[in-house]
């Protein structure tokens, strides 16, 4: 038996994303701010950068902060701050690509499997289970061998590696929604499967999908940075935080850690922000389901 309802709430048009984020508490808000800043930098990087990130003077190699160069120079004598700002682009773009592909394909597979059930579901699930066995970095190395190095191949490889995880989580949620009686009611009304999935199933899964995407971004960023670090992703001289760590390793040993550390800190900050926000959004998504 239920408890009596709360006073009638008139429907707000789909809660704006900001209200949603605000409800995640101070940690969530801070993370959102950090992410927002990172995105801004990713878009405006080249305009913000005081110097060009590509040219440098070797004589300035590992020189510390000076006037006009607040973070100093990297191993090749290039302005560190400028490289960080411009590097944000690929560092954020790659994970974005991974997340977009994963979520799209994952949602498609999850919803279709949950809707059709039976042998189709079994087939898709088994296929995903097989893919599950491959760690992302391994696939990236494979992709590099086959398609050559570069951000595109690495992004694609990671997307393939992550999709089974996303599909599995979303499939559970899709199955739950599928078994709700309002879906059956719509079927009896004669609504098409596609319209039910697009108009009802997926919108009811949206909080979960958003939470998943956010968490995924963080993981993708770390993996892509690692892949670039290994030399299989973004190639030097392109500024990319992962590449920068690799390039400036020698500086750490020589006693000039700032260049490598700065890039590392950027990665950590953004990844942690995505993780925190993602976890908060996930909790909210769970709580929202009554």
């Amino acid at each position: 038996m239920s408890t009596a309802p709360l006073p009638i709430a008139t429907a707000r048009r789909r809660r704006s994303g900001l209200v949603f984020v605000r409800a995640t508490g101070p940690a969530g808000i801070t993370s959102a701010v950090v992410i927002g800043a990172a995105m801004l930098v990713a878009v405006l990087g080249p305009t913000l950068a005081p110097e060009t990130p590509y040219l440098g003077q070797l004589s300035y190699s590992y020189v510390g902060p000076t006037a006009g160069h607040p973070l100093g120079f990297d191993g090749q004598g290039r302005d560190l701050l400028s490289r960080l700002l411009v590097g944000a682009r690929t560092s954020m773009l790659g994970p974005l690509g991974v997340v977009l592909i994963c979520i799209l394909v994952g949602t498609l597979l999850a919803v279709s499997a949950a809707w059709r059930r039976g042998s189709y579901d079994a087939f898709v699930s088994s296929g995903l289970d097989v893919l599950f066995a491959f760690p992302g970095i391994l696939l990236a190395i494979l992709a590099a061998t086959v398609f050559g190095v570069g951000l595109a191949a690495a992004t694609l490889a990671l997307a393939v590696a992550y999709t089974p995880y996303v599909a599995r989580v979303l499939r559970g949620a899709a199955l739950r929604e599928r078994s709700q009686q309002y879906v059956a009611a719509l079927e009896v009304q004669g609504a098409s499967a596609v319209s039910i999935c697009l108009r009802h199933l997926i919108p009811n899964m949206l909080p979960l999908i958003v939470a998943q995407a956010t968490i995924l971004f963080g993981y993708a960023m770390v993996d892509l940075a690692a892949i670039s670090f290994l030399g299989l992703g973004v190639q030097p001289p392109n500024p990319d935080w992962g590449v920068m760590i690799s390039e400036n390793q020698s500086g750490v040993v020589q006693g000039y850690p700032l260049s490598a550390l700065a890039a590392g800190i950027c990665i950590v900050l953004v990844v942690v922000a995505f993780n925190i926000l993602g976890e908060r959004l996930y909790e909210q998504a769970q709580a929202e389901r009554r």
Partner: protein
Amino acid sequence: MSAARMARHPGAAPFDGGATTSLLEVEDLVVDLPVEGAMRRVLHEGSLSIGAGEAVGLVGESGSGKSMTARAIDRLLPPGAAVGGSIRFDRKSVMALTGAALRRFRGEVAMIFQDPRAHINPVRRIGDFMTEALRSVQNVPDAEAERRAVGLLESVGIQDGRRRLRQYPHELSGGLLQRVMIATALLTQPRLLLADEPTTAVDVTTQAEVMAILDDLRREFRLAMLFITHNLELAAAVCDRTAVMYAGQIVEVRASSRLHDDPLHPYTAALAAARPDIAVTANRLVAIPGRPLSAFEAPPDACAFAARCPHVRDQCLERRPALIELDGGLTRCVRAEELRGHMGSEEAP
């Protein structure tokens, strides 16, 4: 003066069917629960007494507070709940119990729930579940505990007890599992059984069977029972006295035999009238307008049922009525005396 005390005052009419030795005494029980940050009242000054071997029914719709009452008695309220008033079992305060005394109390007061599957560990065998309290709290040796379990399973109509003890919960149907729960509840030889809608989720034929079992066992073990249900007819059929709750308050307590023909509160009459009759096809049912109020929605200075009552007068809106004695029962209706006999009618006298 609280209703329970009034009832025991010499000179007052004896309680309908009430035993002289009160096993459980609840006085002015108040329960607040944290809901979205604020404390919400779910029970308003509830008073009830149950004698040894007596069955008392607690009937109400959603939000009436009936389940909360049982949980408060068994110390099963959710964390953050605030409790006021007193609950006395065997003249000892229940709320003050801790540690070993609390565990012993749990052996004396058993509870069975609506959904047995939600209250039993699915990965352990029935036997482990059943004998757990015996073995851990009362230190009964395994073989003896098992023997008693098989004996009780037989009492609830399960013959091949030894085999059942080795089965897992998912191998039993809902009805069967509920019988196991009853048997488990009785293993510690409790003196009071709290049954929270034990038959709501089972078929009506199974319900009849389960109620018959409870009836038999109660007499055999001289067990007192608080039987919670939304079904007025069921409570009246198996309990000596029935209490009716609305919006977190007890609005009537009456001997079951008299509840149907001579109710003391308009809500009770309305509840009985709203139910379709299996023997007669009515043209339309007498439906109470509006919806049942939850405890926190009850106005503090008027009768909670006033908004829906066909007999409402100005005096009903002056203050929250207290429970008063009438003809051996209790009622919260200020007009009860004059309305007796035509509670169910739609026009006032």
